[in-house]
């Protein structure tokens, strides 16, 4: 049986997608949730455009997003393309580095209309990423998944688009900086001040050190089975303390302390100066 080359079932350029991962900025998740809460009353899901860039190592860095109004009937999808383009133009004005990298939709996994929308976005950018955010918590957890589409074609005829899941990096360094305490709860009355943050941090550090102590003691006394990995980690972190002789260390600390004290002194004297100047000025104004 002569099988010509043309009738081979072809998968798209799958080698390129193998190393693809998506990195999601927490802002994107926040924005999608906000859009979902504010969606029109008949809509079951919201979709929108993802902006960002493709890093040299193939990671898709998703940094921004905006929602695009759409309508879905049984097998038709109407996307407000004009809106999409206006919004894109506006976003590019602010940050020209952020280009379209894909699109998002709420809901779990890929649905029928998704292929059509994906096709539209493939025309905007090559190999778009499709991010789904399960806002219904249908499976008991908020699943966030990213897909790329692989074209399945029989010869020249495109048969279908296969959505291939790619790993999503959800580490939220930025959100960590802000502090989860204020992002996790629905209402926070006050922003933590510097000193309060420091206090919490000290407590946490103390807890950690105590935990390590406890673990080591337990192992030494034979209550817990020793784990080499943990042992290596502990010794590494102990070794990461720079070895300094006591006098050198003392000098280092004292110098630093004195610098800081000087600064405090300077700033207090400046403040005194300010209030003095104010008093003098108002006194001088009296006729």
């Amino acid at each position, binding site marked *: 049986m002569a099988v010509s080359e043309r009738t081979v079932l072809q998968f798209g350029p799958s080698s390129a997608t193998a190393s693809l991962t998506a990195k999601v900025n927490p802002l994107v*998740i*926040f*924005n999608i*949730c*906000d*859009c*979902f*809460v*504010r*969606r*029109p*009353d008949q*809509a079951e899901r919201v979709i929108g455009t993802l902006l960002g860039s493709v890093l040299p190592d193939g990671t898709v860095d998703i940094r921004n997003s905006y929602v695009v*109004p759409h309508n879905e009937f049984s097998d038709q999808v109407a996307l407000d393309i004009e809106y999409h383009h*206006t919004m894109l133009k506006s976003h590019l*004005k*602010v*940050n020209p580095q952020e280009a379209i990298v894909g699109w998002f939709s709420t809901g779990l996994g890929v649905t029928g209309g998704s292929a059509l929308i994906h096709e539209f976005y493939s025309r905007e950018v090559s190999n778009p990423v499709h991010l789904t955010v399960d806002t219904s*918590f249908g499976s008991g*957890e*908020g699943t966030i998944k990213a897909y790329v589409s692989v074209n399945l074609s029989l010869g020249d005829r495109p048969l279908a688009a296969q959505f291939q899941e790619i790993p999503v990096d959800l580490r939220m*360094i*930025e*959100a*960590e*900086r*802000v*502090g*989860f305490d*204020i992002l*996790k709860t*629905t*209402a*926070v*009355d*006050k922003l933590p001040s*510097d*000193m309060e*943050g*420091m206090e919490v*941090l000290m407590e*946490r*550090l103390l*807890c*950690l050190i105590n935990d390590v102590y406890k673990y080591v003691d337990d192992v030494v006394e034979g209550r817990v089975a020793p784990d080499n990995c943990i042992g290596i980690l502990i010794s590494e972190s102990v070794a990461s303390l720079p070895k*300094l002789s006591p006098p050198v260390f003392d000098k280092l*600390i004292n110098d*630093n*302390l004195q*610098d*800081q004290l000087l*600064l*405090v002194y*300077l*700033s*207090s004297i*400046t403040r005194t100066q*300010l209030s003095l100047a104010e008093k003098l*000025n108002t006194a001088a*104004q009296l006729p």
Partner: protein
Amino acid sequence: MGSHVNIMESHGNIMESVMEVMGTSWNVSLGHGIMERKSWQHHGKLHVKSWGTSWNVNLGHGIMKESHTVKSWKGYFTHSLVENLSPPLNPKRKEEKRRVRVDKFLIIMANTMARSFLQAVATEEVATPLRVVQIEGLVILKIIKHCKEFSPALVTGQLLGLDVGSVLEVTNCFPFPIQEEDEEIEADGANYQLEMMRCLREVNVDNNTVGWYQSTMLGCFQTVELIETFMNYQENIRRCVCIIYDPSRSNQGALALKALKLSDSFMDLYRNNNFTGEKLREKNLSWVDIFEEIPIKVSNSALISAFMTELEPDTPVTQGDYDRLQLSTNPFLERNMEFLIECMDDLSMEQQKFQFYYRSQSRQQAQQQAWLQKRRDENKARKAAGEEPLPEEDPANPIFKPIPEPPRLESFLITNRIANYCNQINGVTGQSFNRLYLTKALHDN
């Protein structure tokens, strides 16, 4: 005049109504399908879109409850703010050059019957002072992203939200592009803002401008421009707030977010341009009283809260903690000191101007006295000789011309900046002490 409001309830809490005001047809849809019933009370919004021209009615401050009848609907409707989009902003206005353009708001009365209600509301609701700014986590992240990406360039953006009683809710924001001093791009910027607001409204984002945000370097934000921008906003919207974010400080694990407004007494003075020593003393206004910091509250929707809890299990150490433990604060402090010294120089310049003014004023007074004395002697002589005495005042004489008082605003602002630097230095050094003692204890162990 056949004006009537017809509201029919479709399903759940979504209402659609058609209203006829003097022959024009309006389509009123309400509620934009906000999911939680609770949030209804805060985000109740009445959108009106006419088919011919484009109008949008925002029910900003009305707190609506589900039990409200059709009657009170009319009342709330008249009480609403209407933003007119049809005449585009005149982009060439010079005073708007710097950064901000403010949408013009105007109030229409849709219904004659409810005019008395409007008056009633207006008298009832006289200025509850702004106590808290409630920011969504989304807005915080957006601001931080925008400010950080462009740091060290300073950027601004607009805040959108609702004004509910003594709380100003900031529910969304969008960045402004960095502007160049060019007429054409200027017009572009105004269009951008209109476009963005229109687009955001289409996806049911709150459409009231409530202020703006801007980034700063080490907190040198107290400038004349800020005051001008603020006054500009304040003219157009009732409550306005400025949120300041400092990306340079966030590297130390601090969330340097501040909400500011100008104090009322300062605004009065500024409006009348009364920055003389006399007026300042009369009002008892010192440099501390220019800016008022408003406490910030953070709110998140239940959905976001669920996602964050889901995605981020309780980690013992976060990035913020690492940042806080950084021992090297020296570059930051050095820069701070540099700025502080610069400001001190500026301040002493201002002081010198002032001293110069006083010296010349007292010299003038002495001259006036001498002249008066001379004139009196002369008059005595003339009297003795039987002649008419000369007048004791001579407006044409240059020594009677009052010397203009140097403006005080700049020195006030500089003082503010200096105080800010001092506070920062104190805060950072305080933290450094903690860290140093911590390191010491760790090492000793």
